[in-house]
């Protein structure tokens, strides 16, 4: 049984006095346990909407979404989410942010403290435990968000353009950190992005989406073996994937700009 199933998902938005805008039309996709799948497409192709539907944040209008065989009915700790804008709680310190989900689980104070420290170490934020998010850089903020999400031990990880707000250098560092985390604790991940190279570098499979209405055009398996470091981006195979996917995305990206 596939861990995640999108079955004939359709989603539209209604604005007053206007015809319905179809964001997603007949989306079908299955994701297996442990897979890293990117949703790649231009802005407005509905890739984030698809993620929000799986997250249970936006109610499903038509079709089915199954998480480990059960229909999604709302948000839950089995599906951890990381957003582009970090969505940290700015009034809480790093430590308190990471502890938030654990408090909801009713862990003992001691178990909580240990687990928080473990995840602070994992994202290399030792020394910043008592800082507020406003005192951290963008990359550090996103590391807090990732730690906060992973600390509650979700079954799958949903990432909505998580590195889109970071500068190019920080983004590359975060790619390596994410891959390192995945090596240590493999987890099913759905990763929304419009960055072709990022998608190829991180994913086992890339689902290319087209816009108006959003649907999945093609699913490409990325066969690059284990990611040993950024050198892989210099390989011919890597660049073939990038070029092919870019050609698939380009027509829609141009259309989206008009």
């Amino acid at each position, binding site marked *: 049984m596939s861990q995640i199933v999108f079955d004939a998902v359709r989603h539209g938005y209604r604005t007053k006095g206007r015809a319905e805008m179809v964001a997603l039309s007949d989306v079908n996709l299955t994701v297996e346990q442990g897979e890293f799948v990117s949703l790649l497409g231009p802005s407005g192709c509905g890739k984030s909407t698809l993620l929000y539907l799986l997250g249970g*944040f936006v109610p499903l209008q038509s079709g089915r979404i199954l998480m480990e065989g059960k229909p999604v009915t709302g948000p839950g700790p089995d599906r951890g989410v990381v*957003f582009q804008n970090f*969505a940290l709680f700015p009034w809480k310190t790093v430590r308190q942010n990471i502890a938030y989900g654990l408090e909801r689980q009713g862990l003992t104070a001691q178990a909580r403290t240990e687990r928080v420290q473990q995840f602070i170490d994992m994202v290399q934020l030792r020394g910043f435990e008592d800082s507020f998010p406003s005192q951290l850089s963008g990359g550090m903020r996103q590391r807090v968000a990732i730690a*906060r999400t992973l600390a509650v031990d979700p079954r799958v990880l949903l990432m909505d353009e998580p590195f889109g707000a970071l500068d190019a250098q920080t983004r590359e560092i975060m790619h390596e950190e994410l891959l390192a985390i995945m090596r240590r604790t493999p987890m099913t991940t759905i990763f929304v992005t419009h960055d072709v190279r990022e998608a190829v570098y991180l994913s086992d499979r890339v689902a290319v989406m087209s816009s108006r209405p959003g649907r999945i055009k093609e699913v490409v398996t990325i066969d690059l073996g284990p990611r040993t470091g950024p050198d892989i981006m210099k390989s011919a195979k890597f660049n073939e994937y990038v070029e092919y996917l870019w050609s698939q995305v380009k027509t829609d990206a141009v259309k989206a700009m008009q």
Partner: protein
Amino acid sequence: MARLISFFEATGSLFAILLLWYLATRYGTLSEFLLPSPASVLARIADDTASGDLPTSLLLTLRTAGLGFAIAALAGTTLGIAMARIRLVHWFFDPLISLGFPMPKIAFLPVFLLWLGPTAASQITIVAVSAIFPVVVAAFSGAEGVEKTQLWSARSLGASRHGLLWQIVLPAITPQLFTGLQIALPVALVTTIVAEMLTGSDGIGGIMLGAMRFADSAGVFAYIIVIAIAGTLVFRGMERLRARLLRWHPEQSH
């Protein structure tokens, strides 16, 4: 030394006024009736403090203002958040808030006096009614602006729908809420003084009006100074509280 200099930098104009006041009463042609000297006003403050009259009326005024303000803060926050989250509440209250916000609420004092008589209750009511508007508006716009990704994150981390209100919405709106509360606080004090003047209370406003009727200029000026100082202290306390609660906010980094 540096502290002393910065103290005079911040308060120099007040001392200048005090000096002018002194010179005007010492060498000017103004009678003690039109403008009592600083010395006689200070003596009056000392006398009334010693007799206990001043502390009693000050406490009465602060109690009325404080209770009215507290009601406005609690009810205003609740209503503002409810308006942001419940469509029916918004539909009902939005026009009322728009209508009431610019209106001089003190116009309702006769109504409350008719209903409740010249009591503490009618004073507290008019204070709460006056002060509630900036709180509602601040809480509403704050709650409307809470990022949905913050709410979603909390939900996916295991928060219940009910928990969102206390754990996310309330702390998230604290900066805006304090802006509203800092507008509401002086409004509450002003309304208290005016209500006391109009209802003949034993608070500062009532005492001042009584002093005026007996042509007791020193009394009038004494109580003006007392309420000015009390108002400043209360407002400062509020700023302290804000800085403490909003340590996390980038604006508070000073």
